[in-house]
């Protein structure tokens, strides 16, 4: 066993409103430059939908992530040798069309148009070619079921549904969608790191954040393919790959990442997990059905004194162990078993987990009359989407894990309903809690973390000991005296 610390995340999809504030917080700060126009390190997708880049979930097309090979795993893209042999040839890259052609408008025409006989207008122009263009795609094109017959119907995960079920999805009594915000998963077993021929990508030891070194990157773009989430992007201006950095400059100054900070749905939680780094390979090689469970096993209980002892021995700072004890992520993922990873079948062991969304209950439509079906309060059996669909997204097909999460969400609501309104019999609440293998105490804790958690409780940013990092290459006292002084010049290559 080798204990390491990882900054991990939970997105509570029941609270997500699909507003994309997170996306813009990120874009304003990080990808508002030439070469990065099309990049959305944080994006939000409508599900069902095809996403960004389109159909990113189709690993048959993109060959991202890992596949099981006996007791181990290998990249779907290629073996190490194949990779070196084909270093100049990577057919599994998304093209600009799979993302979208970024555009702007000739805004200045509005002010500068000469006197004419009709009203001037700002026409769309490509940010790549500078020429006029037709806008046919964007990073959020199928937002809120826009073009549902093409995009929602084309959702990769719908393959798990029967023809009848798929048809129903577009009828009034079953119609449904939800939002899926996505950032880099900062995986424990990242495909991008493994795919990089240059070794430019690495996981930071202190927090597990995956970074592409802007010095070492040599534009092979294997990372773009190797990432099954398509969360590494190629900067066409600098010729280097870039990706979500989990706002390490913010975290290093004790601030939540920008997309977390700006999340007005308050769906995001951030915290440290302790895990066994030696178990990764074995974990990634487990059968599909066991993957999520195995990933949970890899995560260690920071409340366990033996774990803490071992962590200290393995060089995890005491303050980080303390942060792990306060981690809301640990509670959601391991203790409460409410949060699930995205597409665990790609075996990268993503460190971003999702609480599945509650959806309106299904209804029936007869003779133009709409009648409600099931009970409110999140009873999973009466929701509008088959569990199978969620299982395809969040549990590599393991329906029981999804059901388990829903049962608990349901029980929590019933419990709180009884506490605050009292119109539900005690036995009903008790039964629901039992079926969810929960207790009133746990329900109370889940409710508090879901509804009342403060900013500081939602984002437990661990300390970074920057002075110690700096000390490795410079005297912190000298850094204090001189930081920022001097000319700011771009590096030789690309800037």
């Amino acid at each position, binding site marked *: 066993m080798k204990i390491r610390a990882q900054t991990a995340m939970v997105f509570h999809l029941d609270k997500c409103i699909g507003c994309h504030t997170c996306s813009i917080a990120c874009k*304003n700060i990080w990808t508002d430059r030439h070469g990065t126009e099309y990049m959305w390190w944080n994006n939000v997708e409508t599900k069902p939908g095809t996403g960004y880049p389109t159909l990113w979930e189709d690993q048959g097309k993109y060959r991202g992530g890992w596949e099981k090979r006996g007791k181990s795993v290998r990249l779907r893209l290629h073996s190490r040798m194949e990779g070196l042999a084909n270093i100049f040839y990577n057919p599994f890259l998304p093209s600009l069309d799979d993302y979208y052609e970024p555009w702007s*408008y000739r805004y200045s025409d*509005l002010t500068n148009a000469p006197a004419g*006989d009709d*009203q001037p207008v700002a026409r769309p122009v490509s940010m790549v070619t500078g020429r006029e263009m037709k806008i046919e795609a964007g990073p959020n094109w199928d937002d809120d079921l826009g073009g549902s017959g093409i995009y929602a119907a084309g959702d990769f995960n719908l393959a798990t549904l029967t023809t009848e079920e798929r048809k129903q999805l577009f009828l009034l009594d079953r119609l449904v969608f939800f939002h899926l915000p996505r950032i880099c998963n900062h995986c424990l077993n990242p495909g991008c790191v493994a795919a990089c021929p240059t070794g430019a*990508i690495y996981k930071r030891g202190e927090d597990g954040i995956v970074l592409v070194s802007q010095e070492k990157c040599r534009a092979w773009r294997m990372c773009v393919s190797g990432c099954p989430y398509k969360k590494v992007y190629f900067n066409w201006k600098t010729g280097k790959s870039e990706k979500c950095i989990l706002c390490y400059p913010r975290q290093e100054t004790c601030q939540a990442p920008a997309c977390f900070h700006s999340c007005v749905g308050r769906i995001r939680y951030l915290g440290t997990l302790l895990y066994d780094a030696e178990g990764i390979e074995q974990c990634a090689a487990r059968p599909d059905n066991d993957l999520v469970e195995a990933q949970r096993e890899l995560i260690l209980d920071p409340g366990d004194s033996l774990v803490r002892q071992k962590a200290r021995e393995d060089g995890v700072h005491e303050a980080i162990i303390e942060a792990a004890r306060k981690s809301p992520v640990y509670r959601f993922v391991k203790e409460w078993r409410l949060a699930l990873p995205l597409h665990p079948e790609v075996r990268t062991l993503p460190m971003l987990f999702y609480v599945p969304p509650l959806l309106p209950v299904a209804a029936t439509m007869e003779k133009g009359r709409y009648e409600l079906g099931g009970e409110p309060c999140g009873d999973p059996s009466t929701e509008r989407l088959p569990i199978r669909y969620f299982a395809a997204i969040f549990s590599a097909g393991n329906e029981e894990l999804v059901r388990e999460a829903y049962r608990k969400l349901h029980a929590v609501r019933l419990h709180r309903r009884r506490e605050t309104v009292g119109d539900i019999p005690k036995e009903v609440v008790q039964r629901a809690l039992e079926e969810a293998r929960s207790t009133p105490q746990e329900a109370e804790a889940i409710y508090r973390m879901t509804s009342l958690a403060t900013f500081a409780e939602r984002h437990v940013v661990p300390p970074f000991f920057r002075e110690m990092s700096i000390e490795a290459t410079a005297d912190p006292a000298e850094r204090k005296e001189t930081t920022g002084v001097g000319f700011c010049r771009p590096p030789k290559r690309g800037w």
Partner: protein
Amino acid sequence: MSWIRDLVKPKARLWEEFYRNRWQYDRVVRSTHGVNCTGGCSWFVYVKEGIIVWEMQATDYPLLDATLPQYEPRGCQRGISFSWYIYSPLRIKYPYIRGVLLDLWRRARAEHTDPLAAWEAVVADEKGRRSYQKARGKGGFRRIGWEEALEIIAAANLSTCKRYGSDRVVGFSPIPAMSMCSYAAGSRYLSLLGGVILSFYDWYADLPPASPETWGEKTDVAESADWYNSKLLVVMGCNLNMTRTPDVHFVAEARGNGSRLVVLSPDFSQVARYADWWLPVTAGHDGAFWLAVDHVILQEFYTTRQVPYFINYLKRYADAPFLVELEKSENGYVPGRFVRATSLLRYSNVEKGEWKFLVLDEKSDEPRMPRGSIGFRWQEREGEWNLEMKDGLDGTEITPLLTFLECSNDILQIDFADYAGGKTAKRGVPVRYLETDKGRVPVTTVFDLLMARCGVGRGLSGDYPGGYDDEESPYTPAWQERYTGVGRETVVRFAREWGETAARTGGKCTIIVGSGTNHWYHSNLTYRSGIMALILCGCVGVNGGGLNHYTGQEKVQPEASWATLAFAHDWGAEPRLQNTPSFHYVHSDQWRYDQGVSEGVVVEGDSPAGRHPMELQAAAVRMGWLPFYPQFDRSPADLVLAAEEEGAKSDEEIIAWVTKELKENRLHFAIEDPDAPGNWPRVWLIWRGNALLSSAKGHEYFLKHYLGTHHNSIADESDDMPEGVERSDPAPVGKLDLVVDVNFRMDTSALYSDLILPAATWYEKDDLNSTDLHSFIHPLSAAVPPCWESRSDWDIFKALAEKTAELARTHFPASFREVMTTPLRHDTPAEIAQSEVHAWYRGECAAVPGRTMPQFTVVERDYAQIYERFVSLGSRLREGMREKGISWPVADLYDELRDSAPVREWQGETFPSLENVVDAANVILHFAPETNGEAAWRTFQALERRVGLPLTDLAADSRAIRNTFADLVAQPRRVLTSPFWSGITNSGRAYTAFCQNVERFVPWRTLTGRQHFYLDHQWYIAFGEALPAFKTKIGPVEFGALGKSLPSSRGLMLNCLTPHGKWHMHTTYYDNLRMLTLSRGMEPFWLNDRDAAGIGVVDNDWVEVYNDNGVAVTRAAVSARIPSGVGIYYHAPERTIAVPKSPLRDYRRAGGHNSLTRARLKPLLMTGGYAQLCYSFNAWGPPGSDRDTYVYIHKLAGESRY
């Protein structure tokens, strides 16, 4: 694992400074976005190297209460994209003017040394005038300097004042709450000038008329934190997730706490997906659903079962027990007026007895006159205007009877019209006979009428439904199916859930409602139907309950002190406050195209219900119900001179002279001939808003009749001629001489204006911001100085005032007087002017200003001092402040400011200075009970006297609190409990409306002092809306703008809805590249997938959407989440971004959403002079509804052309 490269050499990680450098910045400043989104979010703006780089939400709102989720973060995708604008190519950096006009001006100016003479020369040359009017919106801008720009505007204003009168200069700026001082800048200038200030809340159709109808209050709602207290949240017509983005977490968190969320929405919207139950009610027909819910509640919670909480609540807080006289109709009875106390011998001599009303006391079995009705408010004796159930005569306790079921003298059959079904039902109602001054009359209670109206028979005879399944009888669950599409079982299930939850929690059910419901012609009825369910279950005035309407950021928390500043009350200036729907309906000539709407009622005799809306509009002005400017067909200043010439000496004599001239038909209200050139508005100043397209219902008519430029309307004028209004032919084109836009971006209004002044953005100025979504007040502050040549609104109008004063020295060297008309206003004694409707101009009553007609006053103006007055807080304020019917002393507060704050000295007097906008902000904070604890205490003391019950304790704990602008910059501050807002927020309690009424027995400012189910005004009876009722939405034929437009062979007719969009707030942010990128590069037209397939349209095809009013060309968004028969064009696109030309209109540039609408006024809502049905700025009058709009849609012919 070898690939965890965490052991790389520290040196290899030095590159990480790459992103660290980017994160570094120099300064962080707190500001917000002054946009009409009701968000009121506090933001931090980041500055690096003197350049604004990005913004992040402030998360330091003070905690309300540990049992509530916190307010953090607040801000949405739109707000966080604002920094894009600052340096974008859309930014207006310099003053601009249309070249054609500039040439004319400079030529005239070369000839005339006097700028006024120059302006007169420009507008007198009809050919030249038309030439720059026709050029409007068609490019050709030229940059000019500030001095020249200000001179043109000042000259145009003064010339207009001189030639026509000050009430021909008009200003429009919406929603002061979002940046109060910026609004006040323009309105203060206009108030001192005598210009007209146009309202916004009603024009945007954001004013819910049902709120004044029921509660006598424009809008008063819970802050969003209080949603968390609700156990059943019903959302209708409000896409919370999309438009209440920073607040909606409270709903998710309430769900986590066991609350339930039900969404009524025709489309499967973002909030629908968030719900437990989604009910796809047919667009515009939510009222039918609610009436059936009311039916079930009255049946199950008032008949088969009794809930003491509900009954006690209804008896004290609603008009339900009040007595209504039944009047004989042709073959039965109809409900008539409330029984007046004076009609009884016992009360025949009480003061204002005509405005006091009766209930039947259970103990004495006699009618009694409880305190609290409006007569008690305005009577001489103070201290009896409260909700204690005591007899106003002798103070004995009253136990009112809700129903006469057990003690009736008779059962009378009453006619109840089913307006939607075109039938009438006769339903038995228990009555008592009362000996009145009219003899023996049958009376019943409002409650018994409600029962009968909703069809709950209680064993009474008549056309009562057989049960819930009776499809033919209104308002059963089965009946509503045909209108809503929602099944009866669902309605019953919902109603039980509602009643049960309210009964168990003491009323913790809420309706969150917005423009999706409010923008319909009959929105007031829909609202009243839902409000009925709330009141019946005791949900109003309790935390977690109530009607929570959020549309338009109308809540200026420090309203009283802000209004003082904004309307120059400190100088005694009377502002001309105009309800905009009436203004635009009349002046942009949309009335000429209007045929009105049949109200579903049988029109007999002289009923107003059958008349043309323009005729009623004119009547409403003449009777003093609504304002209208210009006032007369003569200048208001000339009138004073003329009166004096004929011997008038005092103000009274001038007013008497004016009255006589009107009566004898020598003087006319301008509205009687609005198209006569002397009655046109001439100069239009627009600031902080987008008055063209975005909010311009009937946009194409604006282009035609106001601007005189190209337009895409093909509509013919209506054949209907309103009586009593001149209609000259042809209709005038291009009424406006000058349109000025103060703006930071080149939007549609800027593009079509003559002159554009560059405004500082919200990150470049200091100001105040508040909303009703939270209970804090916080600032805008300048992160950088105004960029390029831009200036803050305050500084712009200050400069304009200075230029105006300079020019006035020649033309208006001395102060002068003019006649002002104001309507009978709510919260003044004039609100009890007209117990019955009589038209003085038809000889039905005497012409008495302030009683049967508008109020006339004589006011003083001093243009040469307009600048000094603008920048000085006038000492008139020392006489006291007044708001909502109470006044309180502030002289010491004034002196305090004069002794401590910056001052201005002129003409030997010293005044607190308003030169700097921060001084203005501090004045607002200093006098406001919401931010100054002493002011709060005094205002409660004043109200306490009127009410006669203790109230000052509400302000006792906070009496020492004083908030300054600097305090707000440090951290948002919570507003204090104040008598001008009805909630109680002491001890961290979440704000919800009407707690003071429920807990402290302060009456609602209504006729009976209670919440009104019943509205007994004669017009309400005539229009069939005395009781809540259901009327269907206006159909395509009555809509009246499809007559000349033809459906193409592969086309479709749709009901066009314009709910608030996701990627913009109205048009703000619409043109922001961030938003355009995350959407579809423009606002598409959403339609149902099968509808689209039927006309051969696939997703992202170009479509042409049109009717007689105009045309829009955009892309189609095809989706199963849109119901068939409905198209959604989210509010609001700009016609400046990627809009092609329209083949249907000879390849001229297509328009936007408001190209398809025409303003339509519901005349009933023009009612005035009657308690809560009384004018108040932004608080009463017909809203400009726009949902009942129909369009044809087809695929665009050929390629799109720009």
